[in-house]
């Protein structure tokens, strides 16, 4: 069947001019250009589509994909389909998501979906004879983005879940099942799944030092972006790579591929609406060095030292529609490591934005180009208007890096060990000596456990308090936690309140030991500790539910502060589930704070200046009922309670963005991840919690209940409210999970 291919005569001409050769080496010192020593390209062609708006979308299926070889890599080259027309009738309707070329250039691993009622699986194509075999994977889970690893292994991402019986996480928008890292032998044996992030991990690529670089979606409350991370081939030793703490060029950094040690080309884009495409950036992670024109950045790699160059300065890095002649880039493969490298790219012209394209009934048209970043010029190579021509790369051998892995400690019995050499060592926060009592470890989960879409109005994920590991005199701490689950940390003071919060999730494999230098210590400096055994090893690691099954990591009726796991705000309709917060208000507060306007119950009014909507007034109310009849219809319930709304409050950004006005006595009383700064906590003025309860108050001000002549909160009640704030001000926890109730 003929393929309509846009005329690329210009490209053909350019191959014979300007030093871009037609293949084979030049003679007599002739510059044959960046493709001069390339005999052919491998390219993936996928039928064009519009349903891959967000960067983690992986289930898109349109039958008719193929892997092609262009030889020589010019318009005059011969385009040959190498998969999967000869593989058999089972492959007639295949879609291919991505592929990788083996180190010896003799085989290709690709992610393919054979029909609409199947999932994406992994396949191995032998280039010699075109035969295809499937690598054994779960036929009801998707396996995508495969890459070859040394030692006849393949790494991939998958929505299969490492924990038997547990549901896979749903992403923070609750619209997609997350994908995580895994690996398998190419003969299908020994499939392993890695520890989970709470959201997606995607687009792995192998670096020359043997580590794998990939994009991780970091979502924890306000943090909501895609950053580069590194991991060993055995999915241990996760390390940040690029983009955290606001250092990224854009919201998301995607499809990073190594140019030279410490240097990567990647797509800089927004999370959604850009069809996985964006601007090209040249990231240098360490100190830049130039060795005879080869630019690299292998030394002192850290986010603090990282820089980036925009290779395509006109291309938007947000999700606004791109302009004609500007377009967006889907992927890039470096052909050299010049300061301004030459790249094989996939690029589409026009407004590469899913909403605009869809409304116009159009699709992006990605074609393959040679990009001269020094002159910001694209030279066309292949563009089939019916297809996305993507992931072009030379059909060449490459050196396999060493197999890189880490030790696993069988004595951990399936747990993960975490800790720090000296928690006071930090680049993000200055701690006062001695102010840290311990490190709180919290497990994260999302709505896949049966929750409604939102845990609360603060948009935090579900939290479970695994416990507090005490910091020893030398600043060290350690804890044994459940393996494979996402956790984040807070340093806490003697009142149990967070001093500093880690804004991202991390996880470890069974038997993995992850000791940090400090609390986000410098990535290039050495953490110095007093010679000798660390105090935390002498005392032993804190046991933080490391061997407790997921179904038991909850406590509906804690009998002590240390037993609190999840902080459920209120009971479910019909009285089901446990409530930890509302009983405190019921016992101590609602006698005065009952929604009746007055000095004890300030009111505020939200007004629309346009008059489109009538003003609405809210009055401070700590009772546990649903919002009143004039504000909601309680058919079955499901809305958050009056006390929750009073504490969490409306969101000022929403108010401002919608041009609303608030008048009256407006306050937000509970701040997520910030018990210490929360008005309600300050008002109640908690007493010392650690290492043992005492009468010492956190603040110099009077304690509200004592001031009112009331009985003060107990230590457990104080800690419940502190945890409610520090764990995100959620209404739901496992203790009041509607999915656990029997209807």
């Amino acid at each position, binding site marked *: 069947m003929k393929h309509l291919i846009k005329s690329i005569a210009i490209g053909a001409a350019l191959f014979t001019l300007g030093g871009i050769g037609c293949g084979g080496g030049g003679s007599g010192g002739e510059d044959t250009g960046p493709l001069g020593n390339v005999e052919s390209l491998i390219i993936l062609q996928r039928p064009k589509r519009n349903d891959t708006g967000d960067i983690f979308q992986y289930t898109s299926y349109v039958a008719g994909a193929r892997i092609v070889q262009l030889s020589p890599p010019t318009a005059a080259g011969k385009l040959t389909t190498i998969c999967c027309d000869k593989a058999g009738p089972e492959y007639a309707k295949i879609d291919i998501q991505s592929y990788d070329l083996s180190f010896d250039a003799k085989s290709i691993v690709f992610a393919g979906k054979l029909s609409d009622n199947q999932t994406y699986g992994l396949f191995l194509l032998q280039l010699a004879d075109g035969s295809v075999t499937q690598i*054994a994977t779960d036929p009801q889970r998707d396996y995508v983005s495969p890459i070859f690893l040394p030692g006849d292994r393949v790494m991939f991402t998958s929505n299969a879940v490492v924990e038997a019986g547990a549901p896979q996480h749903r992403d923070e928008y609750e619209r997609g099942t997350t994908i995580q890292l895994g690996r398998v032998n190419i003969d299908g044996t020994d499939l392993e799944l890695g520890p989970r992030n709470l959201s997606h991990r995607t687009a792995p690529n192998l670096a020359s030092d043997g580590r794998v670089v990939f994009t991780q979606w970091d979502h924890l409350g306000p943090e909501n972006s895609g950053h580069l991370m590194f991991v060993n081939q055995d999915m241990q030793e996760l390390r940040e790579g690029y983009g955290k703490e606001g250092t990224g060029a854009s919201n998301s950094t995607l499809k990073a591929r190594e140019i030279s040690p410490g240097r990567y080309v990647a797509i800089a884009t927004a999370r959604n609406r850009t069809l996985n495409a964006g601007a090209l950036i040249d990231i240098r992670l360490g100190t830049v060095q130039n060795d005879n024109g080869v630019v690299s950045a292998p030394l002192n790699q850290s986010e603090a030292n990282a820089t980036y160059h925009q290779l395509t300065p006109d291309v938007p890095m947000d999700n606004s529609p791109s302009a004609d002649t500007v377009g967006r880039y889907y992927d890039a493969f470096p052909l050299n490591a010049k300061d301004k490298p030459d790249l094989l790219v996939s690029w589409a012209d026009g407004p590469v934005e899913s909403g605009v394209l*869809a409304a116009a*009934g159009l699709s992006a048209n990605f074609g393959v180009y040679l990009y001269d970043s020094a002159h910001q010029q694209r030279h066309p190579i292949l563009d089939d208007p019916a297809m996305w021509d993507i992931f072009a790369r030379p059909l060449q051998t490459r050196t396999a890096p060493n197999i890189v892995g880490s030790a696993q400690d069988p004595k951990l019995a399936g747990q993960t060990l975490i800790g720090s050499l000296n928690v006071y060592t930090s680049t993000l926060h200055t701690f006062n000596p001695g102010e840290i009592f311990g490190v709180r470890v919290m497990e994260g989960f999302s709505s896949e456990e049966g929750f*409604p879409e*939102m845990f609360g109005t603060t948009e935090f994920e579900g939290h479970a308090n695994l416990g507090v590991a005490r910091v020893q005199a030398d600043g060290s701490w350690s804890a044994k936690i459940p393996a494979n689950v996402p956790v984040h940390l807070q340093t806490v003071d003697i009142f149990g309140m967070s001093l500093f919060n880690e804004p991202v999730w991390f996880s470890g494999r069974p038997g993995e030991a992850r000791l940090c230098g400090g609390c986000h210590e410098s990535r290039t400096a050495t953490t110095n500790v007093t010679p000798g055994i660390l105090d935390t090893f002498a005392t032993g690691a804190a046991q933080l539910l490391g061997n407790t099954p997921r179904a038991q990591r909850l406590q509906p009726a804690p009998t002590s502060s240390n037993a609190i796991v999840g902080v459920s705000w209120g009971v479910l309709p019909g009285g089901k589930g446990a409530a930890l917060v509302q009983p405190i208000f019921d016992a101590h507060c609602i006698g005065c704070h009952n929604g009746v306007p007055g000095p004890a119950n300030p009111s505020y009014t939200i007004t629309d200046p346009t008059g489109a909507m009538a003003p609405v007034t809210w009055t401070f109310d700590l009772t546990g009922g649903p*919002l009143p009849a004039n504000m*909601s219809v309680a058919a079955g319930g499901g809305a958050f309670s009056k006390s929750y709304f009073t504490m969490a409050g409306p969101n000022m950004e*929403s108010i401002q963005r919608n041009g609303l006005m608030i008048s009256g006595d407006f306050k937000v009383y509970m701040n997520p991840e910030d018990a210490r700064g929360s008005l309600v906590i300050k008002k109640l003025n908690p007493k010392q919690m650690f290492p043992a309860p005492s009468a010492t108050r956190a603040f110099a001000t009077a304690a509200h209940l004592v001031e009112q002549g009331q009985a003060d909160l107990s230590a457990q009640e104080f800690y419940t409210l502190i945890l409610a704030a520090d764990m995100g001000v959620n209404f739901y926890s496992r203790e009041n999970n509607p*999915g656990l109730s029997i*209807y």
Partner: protein
Amino acid sequence: MKNIGTKLAAVAFLALAAMPAATYAGRGGSAAAIEAAVASTSTDAIIAEVERAEYLLCADCIQTLTSLTEDSRFAVREVAAWWFARRPMLKDMLAGQFLDDLQTGDTTKVRNAADFLGRTRTLTALPQLRAAIHRSDLGTEARLALVRAAGFMAHTGGNEVLTTAMADPDAGVRAQAVVAWRDMLGQKTAQPVVALLGDRDANVRAQAAGVAGGMIEQSARGMLETLVIQDPDSVVRRNAAWALGQLGNGASRAVLQQAAGDQSGLVRGVAKAALAGLH
């Protein structure tokens, strides 16, 4: 057509005022943009604009989104339900109306109701879903949506919906029910799925094999050993091979060795890997 009504103005005002901070995604958007997308008839445009309005405080959007919950396209209904799921009070108002449809509505109304209630994980609708699957007057679309709802809720209270659907005259409904069974939270056994290994439809058999393997259902071994060498469909044979590898019983060695020589590349590689998993 569903209509939340003008009284919603005050409700929406305050309810939506409690929406969380948007950082990068879900920003922008407007009622006009959503309406323009609807007018374009493009599914992808509608999805894109509704997603963009994730955090939008927009009373004008509500009726448009309400109408989308009754669109003929599942993808549109799904994203509209998602939008409401982010607004619990509005979701509850609509859920009440959709619950009535499950009991008395026609095929289309039941379809729309099931998709909304399932996608918003309205667990209180499980009794009505269980009742609806037994209705004899519903078309395939509605029955499929009921299964879809039970699957998305993933609550074992919906098991009856799935077991009933496993006997449905439509193969697509049976297959969907089989697939959903595996991912119900706390599901203990795949026993109800074993009989579907003998289904007349190849896709149903293939999915049943996947579930049996994924849930390590040893009682399925005999049928799987027959399928792996005798089923005319290569996808069924492949899934059966994988499942036998998961079961890990050494008694399956002979059939897997035979399957390792299968004419289909789908089967050969999977069968060889499965052999390595046998005890």
